[in-house]
């Protein structure tokens, strides 16, 4: 049954979360300095606070009790204070995390819109010049070091042509209250008189980072769509469909694309962690106030509670996307469903 499979995935998910929290917990002891400071983020607890904290974090007890106390704090939302700003880590995370999600989402959208049709074209015209050009571009894009690519784009479009701004999410002229944390919906919700100008400005800020970040997933999408399509095109059910008299486009859409997208979807889940890595680097270059920039700042400030929190959030996101893609792949693919049950 499919339920059996879902329950197994759920079990896997809980195991991975368990291991992840273990890892995050052990970091508190592995980082240089006092574990108490690393967990709480209070750099100099005074004499009154010290016994309370030791009691609360159960630092006099064994590691197991400490871990249980850690888990309870995580679930209650007490993730410690940031050593740099003395703000709660969880609060800061909710401020920066949507910006990253926004950037990644637009990059993925671009990669879908561009990558899948181009990959299809490259597969259908595999020996035609257009197919070769697309494959070559995909290979070139796959090899680009993102920080260099981002700088080249800045040199060309911002410094050279002056089309796009180089940093930030929106010009400081516009004051947009944070409701959802996502910039474009926030502007629409803000109800300010200048919302149209602000919207355009946000789009102008978004173009360059989203395009740079989209380069890698787009090329991955082209490559995998092309490979999967070439593979599917040789299957006998395609020949059957052609023999039944379906037109080329019907075969392509109903039998080709649907089957070819399955392995692509799976790969997307596996490539997601690379995408997050690249997002962190492009956030640094474009001063995009997301979790990557926040985390890279935290490391130069030796802000251990923040690093711990960032690890938990980013890894959880990647795990969730991975497992979601895996489940979707199984739900959509009868063959994988059979394998999962058998």
């Amino acid at each position, binding site marked *: 049954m499919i339920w059996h499979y879902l329950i197994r995935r759920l079990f896997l998910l809980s195991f991975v979360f368990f291991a992840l929290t273990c890892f995050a917990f052990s970091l508190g002891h592995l980082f240089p300095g006092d574990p108490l400071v690393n967990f709480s983020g209070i750099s100099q607890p005074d004499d009154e606070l010290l016994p309370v904290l030791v009691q609360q974090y159960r630092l006099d007890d064994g590691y197991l009790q400490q871990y249980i106390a850690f888990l309870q704090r995580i679930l209650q939302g007490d993730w410690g204070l940031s050593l740099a700003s003395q703000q709660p880590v969880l609060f800061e995370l909710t401020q920066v995390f949507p910006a990253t999600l926004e950037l990644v989402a637009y990059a993925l959208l671009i990669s879908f819109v561009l990558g899948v049709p181009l990959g299809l074209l490259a597969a259908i015209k595999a020996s035609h010049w257009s197919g070769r050009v697309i494959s070559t571009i995909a290979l070139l894009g796959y090899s680009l070091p993102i920080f260099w690519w981002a700088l080249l784009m800045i040199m060309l479009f911002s410094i050279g042509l002056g089309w796009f701004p180089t940093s930030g999410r929106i010009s400081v002229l516009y004051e947009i209250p944070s409701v959802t944390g996502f910039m474009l919906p926030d502007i629409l919700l803000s109800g300010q008189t200048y919302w149209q100008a602000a919207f355009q400005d946000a789009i102008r800020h978004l173009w360059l980072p989203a395009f740079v970040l989209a380069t890698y997933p787009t090329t991955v999408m082209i490559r995998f769509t092309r490979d999967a399509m070439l593979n599917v095109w040789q299957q006998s059910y395609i020949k059957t469909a052609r023999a039944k008299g379906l037109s080329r486009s019907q075969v392509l859409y109903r039998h080709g694309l649907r089957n070819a997208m399955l392995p692509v979807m799976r790969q997307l889940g596996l490539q997601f*962690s690379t995408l997050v890595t690249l997002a962190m680097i492009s956030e640094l270059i474009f001063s995009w106030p997301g979790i990557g920039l926040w985390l890279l700042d935290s490391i130069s400030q030796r802000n251990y509670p923040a690093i711990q929190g960032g690890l938990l959030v980013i890894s959880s996101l990647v795990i969730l996307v991975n497992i979601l893609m895996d489940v979707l792949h199984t739900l959509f693919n009868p063959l994988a469903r059979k394998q999962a049950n058998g």
Partner: protein
Amino acid sequence: MAKFQWLYHKTEHGPLSQLWASFRQQHSAVIGLMLFGFFALIALFGPVLTPYDPYLQNPDALLLPPSWDDMGDVRYLLGTDDLGRDQLSRLIKGASYTFGIALITALGAMFLGLLLGVLAGMSKGFRASAFNHVLDLALTIPSLLLAIIIVAILGPGLINTIWAIMLALLPHFVHGVRNTILQQLEQEYVIAYRLDGANNWQILRYVIFPNTWEQLTVLFSMALSTAILDIAALGFLGLGAQAPAAEWGLMVADALDLIYLSPWSIALPGLLIFIAVLSVNLVSDGLRTAVRKRQES
């Protein structure tokens, strides 16, 4: 005639020469291999080839453009940086850092991954399942994040990033080796060999290993391109190689303040990273195609 093609098909060649024959037919892959060899030679003999000491500062020649520019100086072929250090020498030296160390890191990850992958592939039941789950976890932590955490524990530096990247590459090798071994274990010739009385070690040594090296080279080439990109990225972020090392990523970061004054000092190191990764990817693609063709024939 196609019917009789097998009569003309040369089968006396070993798998290695068959692989080479189909690899050689792909021009892009051969070009990639030549570039790869070029980078490997420079990484190895870099210290002998540099026209100047890469760390020697010349206060009389700051920020010279490349020699073909009107302002350039022919003594400094690719110009100098803001401290008057020769760009060409630094770029050559950088090949040993970025390319050479990536090579060593990927090799180390391959050996460790082979070991763990064999353990994972040959074990059964609870142990195998526990192993898979740990592997799934390791695959989900982005490599840069893992490197950041390791650097946070150990402190920044080139040696620590080598460990970090090795650790980040490891799961891909373990995963790949394990899948190949599981695939091989299902083959009938393995069962036949087992019926002959072979133990696990003999099966591994005489049946599985000879059938996995192709997969291993493909995995290695893919890991190598990741390793180059990661070392350069960490150098760029200031977490990897530290100044004044002539690591390519670090050189890009150093030149950031000079983006208006000397754009070529950003463009050149980045271009080298790009070409190095491209050459590895070309070889990798060629290898994969060649392996597939050989296995199909």
